């Protein structure tokens, strides 16, 4: 799978892993990851900035996400007034484009026919330093984001997710929803966003990922041509120093809104992405919640108490949450479902899991890894989360890491992390009000 690295005067070859090569642009420190793959004549081009809602303080919550929107309003060169808006230029050639913001990162991506890769490179290089932040654009985009906020508020599970995270984290910025608090979206200023942009949007705080059907040397030429003259950040990007204090007791948060059925989410404090215990927690999450033979499916969904149950570990830069969510079926109380979850966890804490369960989980992860390489965009999406967590090789080494997890490791992390004093329980309690349809 290993290739001979490209020798290019503008780049330093760093390393390769799992078929992905890492280069560093000498002039400004921009990292470039490349995975040539000729299955289809398309390329995924993605830039990941190492900034997310983790980097926001009170008053500027939602700034990363707001800025993500403003990046599509463009620059002097790529602007709707000239018929060259980012969407116009890229969608015209059939590109699938968008951007996302999360706790630790912001990514902009395009999946496009290979002949048009240059367009995506030009746009990302230009808007890295030249975004306009026009006041009129800012005003119209603010109401767009407020509508996005309202859409999220319509969804019970999103309400519950925000309630659990903001209750579980009282000091660390994972407390804030990525979209921000409504009043911050309403009040953020152009200067506030500009300051944010000037602090974080630099080549040495970003990683490019290029996956698909492209020629390596020519592509490095292209990247150098468009990014090479951008200077490195004038000052080091500020570190996030706040650490979440240890949770000393169980927390309970209730969301009451008009609705039909209840939902439940329990978050246990979990370690950062690269902590070895996170690998064991990943396997434990699969044993608990992946597939019809998982323990929670059998105890909750199969017996009709829940419509759905899921378990996940947030692999983030800083410690996050191991969380369990359940959509309750009619007639089943939150407390009853919580008791079942507690008994399932206790059983694992006391007796561990079986080798058959571990093997099944690892086989699922192995297949997922292969499926995840089907298509350039699928690879980019997974690579993005590894980059955000702090090391892109988390993607290429993941399978090896989880395969080393032993039965004992799993029992130990269940005992260490899934304890009531580190738990935050969120209950979504619907207050029934049936909609009425009126025709005129």
């Amino acid at each position, binding site marked *: 799978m290993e290739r001979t690295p490209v020798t290019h005067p503008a780049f330093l070859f760093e390393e390769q892993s799992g078929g992905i090569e890492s280069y560093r642009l000498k002039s400004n420190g921009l990292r470039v990851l490349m995975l040539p793959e*000729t*299955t*289809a*004549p*398309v390329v995924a081009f993605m830039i990941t900035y190492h900034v997310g809602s983790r980097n926001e303080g009170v008053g500027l919550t939602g700034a990363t996400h707001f800025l993500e929107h403003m990046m599509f309003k463009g620059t002097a060169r790529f602007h*709707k007034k000239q018929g060259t*808006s980012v*969407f*116009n230029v890229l*969608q*015209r*050639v*059939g*590109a*699938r484009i968008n951007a996302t913001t999360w706790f630790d990162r912001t990514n902009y991506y395009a*999946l496009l*026919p290979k002949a048009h890769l240059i367009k995506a490179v030009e746009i990302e290089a230009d808007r890295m330093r030249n975004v306009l932040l026009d006041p009129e654009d800012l005003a*119209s*985009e603010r*109401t*767009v*984001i*407020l*509508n996005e906020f*309202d*859409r999220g*508020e*319509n969804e*019970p599970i999103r309400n519950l997710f925000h309630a659990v995270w903001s209750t579980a984290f009282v000091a660390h910025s994972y407390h804030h929803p990525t979209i921000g608090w409504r009043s911050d979206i309403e009040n953020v200023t152009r200067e506030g966003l500009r300051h944010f942009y000037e602090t974080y949007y630099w080549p040495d705080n970003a990683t490019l990922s290029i996956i698909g059907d492209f020629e390596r040397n020519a592509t490095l030429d292209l990247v150098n041509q468009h990014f090479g003259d951008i200077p490195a950040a004038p000052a080091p990007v500020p570190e996030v120093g706040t650490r979440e204090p240890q949770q000393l007791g169980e927390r309970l948060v209730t969301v009451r809104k*008009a*609705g*039909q*059925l209840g939902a439940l989410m329990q978050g246990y404090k979990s370690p950062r992405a690269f902590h070895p215990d996170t690998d064991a927690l990943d396997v434990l999450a699969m044993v608990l919640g992946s*597939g*019809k*033979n998982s323990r929670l499916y*059998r105890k909750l*969904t199969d017996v*009709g108490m829940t*419509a759905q149950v899921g378990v996940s570990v947030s692999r983030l830069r800083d410690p996050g949450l191991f969380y369990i969510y359940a*959509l309750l*079926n*009619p007639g089943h109380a939150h407390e009853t479902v919580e008791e079942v979850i507690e008994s399932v966890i206790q059983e694992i804490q006391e007796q561990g899991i079986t080798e058959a369960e571990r093997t*099944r989980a690892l*086989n699922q*992860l*192995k*297949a997922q890894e*292969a*499926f995840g390489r*089907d*298509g350039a965009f699928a690879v980019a999406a997974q690579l993005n989360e590894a980059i955000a967590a702090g090391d892109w090789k988390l993607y290429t080494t993941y399978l090896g890491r989880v395969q080393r997890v032993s039965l004992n490791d799993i029992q130990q992390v269940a005992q260490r992390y899934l304890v009531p004093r580190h738990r935050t329980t969120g209950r979504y309690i619907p207050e029934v*009000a*049936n*909609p*009425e*349809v*009126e*025709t*005129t």
Partner: protein
Amino acid sequence: MSTNSQASTRYGDRVIDLQVGPCRLLLLKTSVQSVVSWEGSFIAHPNFGSDEELLLRMTTALLDKGTQHRDRFVLADVLENKGAHLSFSAHGPFVEFSGQALRDDVPDVVAVMAEQLQAPRLEADEFEKTRARMMAGFQRALDDTGIQAGGALRRELYPEAHPNYSTSTPASIKSLESLEPESVRTFHNSHFGSNELILVFVGDLDVDQIVQAVQLHFGGWEPHLAQASYASGLKMQPPSTLEIPFPDKANVDVLFGHGLSMMRQDDLFVPLYLANHILGGNFSARLMATVRDELGLTYGIRSGLAGIRTWHPGHWQIKVTLSHDRLQEGVDATLEVVNTYITEGPSDTELENHKTTVSGSFQVGLATTEGLAGALHHNAQRGFPTSYLDTYVPEVQAVTLLQVREAINKHFNPEGLHQVRAGVLPSGSQHRGG
């Protein structure tokens, strides 16, 4: 069987097209490593406008709850130990299935799929659990502004026996309450079979291995005797405005739509598809550029051709999400963009740009094994030749401005648009005429 030329890049040449027993089997080998994706379907012919559509959904939901030979956990164990995915769903008159597995595991997973389709256990206790789960799904749907608005619009546009009709959620709950386990067993006996059976496999294929597996597990599957029973016409009635108030839902889903007297194989389909794409097909289309980008009134606005098949017509719809305090402003702005577009028509430049967009998107959509399997499957379901995947882009490129204008004039009528609003509505607005 068509020839399989490795040198050709044309799907018409590369896809192996076989008849294996009752199954039309399409196979496409790609250079992806280890992964195989597949999609397939058969036609069940439920009697639309009766409980049979719900019975089809219920029966499909019970397929993975055990078979006459193995219980649900044993079957799940086979799949989960291989990390394979298998899913079933009901779409219109079809039962569709899809899967993904590593190359060497495909025969075993195909065996599970065939067993679940042909010999499900359909036990009474699993029936009750599935009913409870579906009931919960309906209750959640009652809480979803998008689902409620979409269903209300379809009830305005289609008669009850049309496959695109959407039964109201309270009526679905009532029907679900009255279903009996025996009716599911009877439905399976009379509507599950190899009628119009299609299977498409794409990826790192062992062709002989798959042909053998399909022959072994589907070769003897008999067709059922049910006949098609549905209305293909549209409901013709003056446009209405429906308002569905939801407390606590600050975002209002607004839908506009009217029926289209067009089927997928009509000559004007591609020109009309482009006409709609220019109006609201993507971020750079007119609706998004004006109502979102310029006026800042919405996070999302789209227009689309919906539910158009080769066997029945569908409808045109425009969907916009609006915060309740900007509702009327957003509705007015949306209609203004639509009216201007219909009156003026697109420019040459717009058409050329969107032709490139649609062609490029098509290419990008075929970049994964799942995307290819889906495109080949739905193409076969429509009765189109495999080579349509090669001729689609030239067909798009050949569309003229004149054809697009003809399609607009013939099929889009802003004055005929029905309107549905679901969410927090301004006080007293429920009684406003439309």
